[in-house]
């Protein structure tokens, strides 16, 4: 049966008003450390090459200077990105806010989550951090990844999402693609 109820727009819960949490305080520092370490390694290799090889004098200063500038920029942006990263968890969805120059806010309804993956790289492990990856159905199945969570938060959040999804699906009878065979009378 087709119904088309009026929805009072003003009374809808506003995603913009959600309570956003920053990542663990160590996360931006970790990102900065990795980016700078990477830049320093490149710089070191370059300096060695410049010392060994016979290159024009001008290049001797311009090349390392350029690389230094580039990696300072990259490190700075990565650090700011990590500092600005926010996530919010509501009853029905998870929100990720990211971006330095472009601000992106992605809302992932929990009922549409196909599976949740907890990932820990070697550095994450060392610092007790973890990343949570949320997958939904279809094109570009990876919805978003929330990095820089403490192990404990990641575990709790994963549990919460899976538990909520079960509850939601039990009450609505919908699966993640909104296409359980019994629905849609046409």
């Amino acid at each position, binding site marked *: 049966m087709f119904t088309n109820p009026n929805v009072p727009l003003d009374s809808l819960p506003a995603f913009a008003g959600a309570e956003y949490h920053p990542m663990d305080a160590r996360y931006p520092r970790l990102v900065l450390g990795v980016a700078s370490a990477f830049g320093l390694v490149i710089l070191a290799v370059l300096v060695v090459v410049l010392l060994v090889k016979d290159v024009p004098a001008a290049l001797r200063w311009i090349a390392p200077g350029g690389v230094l500038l580039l990696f300072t920029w990259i490190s700075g942006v990565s650090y700011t990105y990590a500092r600005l990263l926010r996530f919010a968890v509501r009853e029905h969805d998870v929100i990720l806010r990211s971006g330095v120059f472009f601000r992106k806010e992605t809302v992932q309804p929990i009922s549409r989550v196909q599976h949740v993956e907890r990932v820990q790289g070697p550095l994450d492990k060392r610092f007790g951090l973890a990343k949570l990856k949320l997958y*939904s159905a279809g*094109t570009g199945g990876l919805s978003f990844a929330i990095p820089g969570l403490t192990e404990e938060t990641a575990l709790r959040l994963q549990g919460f999402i899976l538990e909520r999804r079960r509850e939601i699906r039990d009450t609505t009878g919908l699966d993640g693609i909104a296409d359980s065979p019994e629905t849609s009378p046409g």
Partner: protein
Amino acid sequence: MTPEDTGSRIGDDWRRLSPWSMLQSVAKLVSFAVPLVLGAALASLDLMTAAAIIGVAALNVVLGYLFYRFRISDTAVEVRQGWLQRTHLELSFDRIQNIGIEEPFYFRLLGIVTLKIDSAGSATEEVRVAAIRRAEAESIRAFIKARRSGGEATSNEAGGGEATPTPTDDAELRFTRSLGDLVIHGITNNRAFIAIAGLFGLMSQTNLSPMDLVRRLGIDFDVMFAGMSMVRLAVLIVVAALLSIGLTALLSVLGSIMAYYGFAMYRTSNGILVKRGLLTRHEIHVEKSRIQSIALRQDWLDLLIGRRNVVFEPVAHGPAVSNPESAAAAQGKRILVPSVRLQETAAVTDEVLRVRPEALRYTPASKRPFYRFAIFFSIIYAMYAALPLSRQAWWFVAGVAVIWALHTALMFMNWKRKGLAIDGDIVVVRSGIIGVNYAIFQTVKLQRITRVQSLLMRRRKLSTLVFSTASTAARMPYLDTRFANSVMDYCLYTVEAGHKPG
């Protein structure tokens, strides 16, 4: 359940395919071997190497056949295959997206078909049961369908031979395309890739460049062009261009007819059934609820003659495809209804969703970014026109002016087409430059929503919305942020409050 009491062998036993199934692999092998041998002859490759490669491929076909087993239980389709690496795939009925029947021309005389079963999972989870009798394919399809909708049917009822209702039996013909429509489709939409797919394979497999071919055929451009006047050369270029356009159009028409010959769309109890194809007949049955979105696509030539393509999009795998008519459609995952007249559109889309995109009111994109881009590009063009070269050559300035005017006009039209309409539980995103495209989906089909703002957009209180369904992503740029927020909140509300599609 044993084969004896059903007649058709739906049951728990593991089965081997008919040896005829190797025909399909052999057909693939031939399409791969012919260019290889040709290439070997042309590019003076070692013929023995080519023969060895073909031999190994042939062995692979036989071993692949010998190691393939499938079974259809009460709840799932299972396949065991592979001789180097054994794989066991179990595809439960409730995860099946669509069931198709494929009938290559070399199967037609034998009365056998290939059953294709697509899942909601990854693209590798696709079952192909090759070379089974048509009646059997139909009964398997009916069996799975009956199991999915309620599951009260036992395998005995479903497997009971002729008495079994099949999707074709209760199907009601709703829409067809004539040969003339397909010729039009071939001209307005480039379908040449279907016809020349094999040819491209040839080129890539043999390291044979078009220039090599020219050289082998004894054509020497240097000799041909030496002493030719500018006028004759210009005429030659124009003729060559016209010829290649004509040839492409011809190939495209050919491709269109090959892919969509005898196109017929049926309404079934719970979805649509589409039959199409000249050499290989395709039959695809999709449940209505499995269709995630509808795309109406119109090229500029389509606009001139008042036609468009309607594409029904089920769950798509892999990276996002911006053009729903591309490779995926050719593979038969998406259902493309070719070159539909504008006034016929509603009749086609009504089979899945009642929507009249033309009758809706659209919220346009903000004018401001358009002005900004127009001014930005105008300055760049002005700088070009001010180059020293332009002092001697008036035609250079005129050329820049023409390109500027064209570019600005196209940018304006692109902005003008952008629009977002929300009608009850249906979202429509309009786009396009010359032709008008629509992306249509129910809010319940949304997988997630993203709002994007650049620094400048934040200052101007503008936002871009990206709606992602399991089949497509539709982008609506430069909306007023307050409006964008309320759209997002509304869509999330309908998704999360658990409204069912319908």
